[in-house]
Each structure stands twice: as C-alpha cells, then as structure tokens.
C-alpha cells in the first residue's frame, strides 16, 4: 500500500491509544488527588506534575502557564487543550482527520464510529465538564477507544492496512506503559532498599489501575501488592494484555508478517526486543536497575519506530532500490 496511507493509519492508531492512555492516567491522578497524600521531597513528583513528567510535556506546560501548578490547569492542558498536540482532544481530532483521508481504506463503520466520537466530544466539552466530574469524561473516552478497536477488529479486512493499525496501537501502548511504570514507580519507591517491603496500598493500587491491571494482579498473585510483582506483571507477563511483553509479542508478529527482503531490520529489532522480554527474569531486571531497564526498552522502541518509518512509512529510496523496478519494464 502507499507509504503515506500506512503512515496515516499507523498514526491514527497511535493517537487513539494515546488518548485512551492519557484518559486513564489523568483519571487515576485525579482520583488519587482526592486522597490524603504525603508531600514528596521532589517537586516533580507532586501529584499533578506526574502526568506532565510521564508524557514529557512539562516544558510545554510551563511555557504556557506560569505560576502554581493546579489540577484544573493540568487537566485542561492534557485533556482539552487544542494547542497541545498530545491532549486527548488533539489526539481524537488527529485520529479523525487521518480516518477521513483514509476513508477508502478503512471500513465505513470505522469511519462513522470515529466521526461520531469526534462530533460528540465537541458537544461534551463545555464548562460543566469540571463541575459534572471529569471522571465521567475519561470513562467515556476509554469506552470510545474500546469501541473503535472493536469495530476495527470486527469489520476490517486482515490486510496490510489492518496490520499497520495494530502496529500503531502496540507501539504506543508499549511506550506509554514503560513511561508510566518508570515515573510512578520511582515516586512511590525512591530507594532500592524498600523493594521487598510493605508499601502504600492505595498508591500501588493506583499504579495498577492506571494501566487497567488491578484486577489482573489480584487474580494472579492473590496476595499483598509488592513492587517486584507489579513490575513483573506489567513488564514480563504475556497473559496481561497491556504488559510490555504482550505488546512486543504482537509487534514482532506484525513485523514478521509485513517484512520482505527489503525490510528485515524492523523485524530483527522487534525480535531482539521481544526475546528480552520473553526470556527475562524479574530478578535480573532489578539487579540491572528498573529505571535503567525501562530506559533501555524506551530507547529500543524509539529505534524500532525509526526503522518502521524508514522502511515502510516515510521511505527514502536509494538508486539501487529504484533501478531494478525501472528495469523491470
């Protein structure tokens, strides 16, 4: 398929996943902010700073707003701000625009679903959003994302276009999960010494909820929450759909299906990354240092994204690639 088309679909998908993850993360932050909280030593670990730190948007935020960090400002910035390209609003808008240009490629039901999402979102955003309770808005965003995924899974032909849509979802999910885990983990557990110790139930519960893993944790471990188990669940377990391993498994499968003689490198990088997670042991992760481990994962994901761009989405051709195609006639 046309590279530009694949690029549009990949990013449509990434934007939707980003909107969903942002909604989830902000919702948890909001709920946690309603509980009593011990003020951290570092200013960056302040409740409402965390979403900004996780997404790397802190400097954008401070460029726009001087003065105190407030919940309302952060919520507006990350949920509703049209000038913030990663806000929920902007993500849904971008996804809808991409879908619009890809109307011949995605199914009618997919387009109608995302178009409805866009139109309804514009109706929902008004001043009453904050007084009504912004949690309701976040729940709605999550459900619309699930719905779109359902419509896609249920109606779309399993062709290259479908593969790029799925690829976008998993690349974004892996990236977001690694970031949330890294930042939240370290605000909750600044010292290695406390790794095996008792922890603040609510705080850890919040971390699990921010990636919809709370119920799964209870099912698997049936015991108190420990940091090491949380990390294992979210990094290594492949039965947990939002874990890093589950994401890399899908990414590797998709790239294997898509690859041909010219594009082995994306497949290779994905395979390497997946093997790390498939054969990893949580004890080794902590020996190396969780933060260092997650930074490495993020770097690999970034390199993989680059290769995907280079080979599929925004290719630049060399003379040797062009000559055989021209000579073919």
């Amino acid at each position, binding site marked *: *398929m*046309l*590279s*530009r088309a*694949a690029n549009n679909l990949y990013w449509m998908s990434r934007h939707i996943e980003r909107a969903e993850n942002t909604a989830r993360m902000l919702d948890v932050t909001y709920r946690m902010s309603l509980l009593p909280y011990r003020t951290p030593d570092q200013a960056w670990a302040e409740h409402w700073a965390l979403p900004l730190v996780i997404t790397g948007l802190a400097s954008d935020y401070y460029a726009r707003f001087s003065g105190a960090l407030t919940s309302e400002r952060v919520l507006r910035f990350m949920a509703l701000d049209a000038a913030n390209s990663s806000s929920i609003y902007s993500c849904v808008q971008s996804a809808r625009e991409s879908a*619009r*240009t890809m*109307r*011949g490629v995605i199914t009618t039901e997919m387009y*109608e679903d995302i178009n409805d999402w866009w139109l309804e979102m514009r109706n929902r955003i008004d001043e009453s959003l904050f007084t009504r309770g912004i949690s309701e808005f976040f729940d709605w965003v999550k459900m619309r994302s699930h719905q779109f995924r359902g419509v896609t899974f249920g109606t779309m032909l399993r062709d*290259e276009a479908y593969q*790029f849509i799925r690829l976008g979802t998993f690349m974004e999910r892996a990236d977001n999960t690694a970031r949330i885990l890294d930042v939240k983990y370290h605000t909750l557990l600044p010292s290695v010494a406390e790794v095996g110790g008792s922890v603040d139930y609510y705080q850890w519960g919040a971390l699990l909820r921010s990636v919809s893993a709370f119920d799964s944790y209870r099912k698997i471990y049936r015991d108190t929450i420990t940091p090491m188990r949380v990390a294992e669940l979210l990094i290594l377990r492949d039965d947990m759909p939002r874990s890093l391993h589950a994401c890399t498994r899908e990414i590797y499968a998709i790239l294997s299906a*898509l690859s*041909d003689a*010219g594009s082995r490198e994306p497949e290779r990088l994905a395979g390497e990354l997946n093997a790390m997670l498939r054969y990893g042991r949580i004890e080794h992760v902590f020996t190396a240092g969780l933060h260092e481990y997650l930074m490495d994962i993020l770097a690999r994901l970034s390199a993989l994204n680059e290769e995907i761009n280079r080979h*599929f*989405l925004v*290719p630049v*051709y060399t*003379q040797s*690639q*062009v*000559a055989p*195609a*021209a000579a*073919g*006639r």
Partner: protein
Amino acid sequence: MRRPAFYNEMYAEDGAVYPHYAAYAEWLKATTVEHLLQKQREADALYTRLGITFAVYGDESGVERAIPFDIIPRIIQPGAWKKIHAGACQRLRALNAFLKDIYHGQDILRAGVIPADQVLGNQLYRPEMREFEVPGDIYVHVAGVDIVRTGENEFHVLEDNLRTPSGVSYMLENRRMMMRLFPELFSRMSVAPVDHYADCLLDNLHAVAPGGAGSPTVAVLTPGPYNSAYFEHAFLALQMGVELVEGQDLFVADNTVFMRTTRGPQRVDVIYRRVDDDFLDPLAFRPDSMLGVPGLFAAYRAGRVTLANAIGTGVADDKATYAFVPDMIRFYLGEEPILRNVPTWQLRKPDDCRYVLDHLPELVVKEVQGSGGYGMLVGPAASREEIDAFRTRIRARPDNYIAQPTLALSTCPTFSGGGVTARHVDLRPYVLTGKSVSLVPGGLTRVALREGSLIVNSSQGGGTKDTWVLEEQC
C-alpha cells in the same frame, strides 16, 4: 393556448405527457406526495451519511454539504439521445484534432480559420507541448460537454470542459440511489445502464500506456482531501481498482514515475490527473506548487508516463476558442456540426463589446476562463447595481469577457418544496476517448433548484437529477 416560454421535458404544449415519460407519469400519478417526501428524505440522509459532498469555496465554515439530489429523473427520448451522442462525439473528435494541430503543424491557424493570437497568445497554450507525440494522438481522454435544450430537437452546447471535468461520480451515485429508492421503476422501464463508465475509462487509460508496458499501472492523482472534488477522485480510483495518489506519493527517477509503497518503489505508467497543469510539476510549471511531482513533465516528454488528460488542453475549452468549434468540425472532419454553439459575442472585439454593454440586462456575460458559474452576470436576474458594477468590470478588461443571449433552458418536473414543479435543467454528458469515442447513456442533469433560476451549478445552489435514456424496444 399560449406557447410556453420553455420546453418542458415531460409535458407537451397541450399538457399531454410525452411517450418516453408515459410509464413514469403513470407511476407518479399513483404515488402520494407523502411517499415522495419520504423518499426524498431517505435520499438526503443517505447522501449525508455516505459523505458525498462538494465543499463550497468561500463557505467560511468549510462544512461538508451534500449536493441536493432530486428524486424525479430526467428522461431523454432515444432520438434526442442519438443526436446528443453523435454531436458530442463529433465535437471531441474535432477538438482532439485541433489540439494535435496547434501543437504541431498549426494548419488551422495557417488557413486563417482561427486568429493565431487567440491560440498562441492564449495563457493556457503550452509551448512545452509543441512537437510532442502523445499516445494515440489523444489529448482529451475525459470531457464533460455542457448542453442545454431549447426545444424538442434544439440543443446548444454551452461549453466544453476539457481539463479536469468533474461530476461523473454524482452521475454514478445518482443512478445507484434511484435504483435503491425506486426499484419498481426499473422493473417497469428499461433504463440503459451507466455502471460501465469506470471500466470504460480504465480500458482507455490502459490503452494509452507507454509502449511495452505489459500490465500497465494506472493511478489517479488528486490534489488531496481539501479539494472540493476529492470525493470523486477517491470514488473513481476505487471503482477502477487503482491507487489514489497525491503528489508527495510519487517521485521521478531516470524519467520514470514511481509510487512510494510499503513494499518499495512501484512504477506508474498512466496517471489520470485531477491536478491542473500549472500545479503538476514545480520544475516545469509553478515552482511554488506543493501538489505536483518534480520531474513529472520530463518523464511525460520522455514518453515514460502518460497523462490523461494531456497537458495544454485548456486552450481548447477557453470560452473564446469555443466560438470556433463549429469551424473546427468543418475544417478537420468536413462535417456540419450536429450540435449548435450558442451565439457568442467576444468583448475583445469593439463592436461586440459595444453591443453587449448596450444590452446587459438581456444577456449572460462570462469570464473567458471562469468556471463553476462564478464571475458571471445573468442580465435578466440581476439588479441595477449588479449590472452597473459589472459594466465597470467589463470596461476595465473587455478581453476577459464573452456574452451570450439568455437561453430558454428546458424545464423538468422537480420535487421541490413538497410538490412537483418545473425547474430549469441542463445536461453534462461525459465523453470518453480511447480507441473510439463513446458516452455512457445519460450524464449528469443539473437542475436550478430556485424557482425561475437559470443557474444550475452546484457551487451556487444547484442540484442534480438522475438522467435516463430508455433502451429502445426491439
């Protein structure tokens, strides 16, 4: 009984229904207004849902607005269609010959049939196309010929559209819509199908591929989703089963055009381009164009890719050149024109200009290179102020205008405002040129929805109807 001012497509002067409308009239008589209203609503809702729209330039909201579709078909007698068919084909044969001639021997200019500066001095004449052999000598692969009917056997060509004519997607969707809304009509009447348009076009495009291309790759080149006719570009690409590309999807290497795909570069042999000449190639034409492909024109001249329509056809659909088409038919084909031109005054000529300025309230004045009904004056419908303002514009640049008498466009029953009333219509059949010249039976009937209005362009509030040509009973 007083002779009606306008020819009505369905009813004769004495109120009797014409034979070709008889079966439909019978059905209409037995159908309630409520039923028609319901069907009209269904059509409107479906069109909006499907998102078949035609963004209106100058509309601030940029909102997609469905083109109004009228559920009463415009039916054409077989005899009339034969004339339209033959006349449109004849025009295209002459126009293709004209284009070949002016880019080669220029015989028609040498013979003094057309003033040389009208052609060579024309903004749309492309000197870059001189002495270049296009495949099959075909310059205009797709044309839209605008025809009005002023009497039972009187047809006038209003203009030829030879660059990037649009509207065929509406023709095809209107037919589908009618079959969906009124299947019973199709079982009672034999309406000649139009579905094969895309197949025919694809065949013609394959036929002009650069020599030696075994299984040619065709692509539709669009300016993109913000172009008002984008829906049509996407629709045709889908119907033909070919890729829809924008300039940025293509690149030229070794004078060969390639598409950027997820499987590497893929060669393109024929491009059905819906981008204007000026924007096709920043290296050859407007350097600021973001819509084109650098090097495309060189690849075209090297014969490595075919463009449909060819570059440089605009000189032939210029409103001033239009006046010479009957002469072209005589000069190249040795035939008399089957369809008449509309008498046209060329305001660059002082006598014509004087006459027109004296008779503005009776005439229709158009910009020589205008389109879509913009920049024109409909004398009888204009206010004193509008006429005066236009007079000033004419005086400033007389050579920019032509004028024609107001034509008595035929009317057709239209379901407007909850009842069946007569509204003015025209017809745009589409002429495809390949190994032969052909038309699918029908075309796009455009209807002026406002009572008494003669302006049918969709961009100015007009609508469309399905057009039926009945297959003759053996």
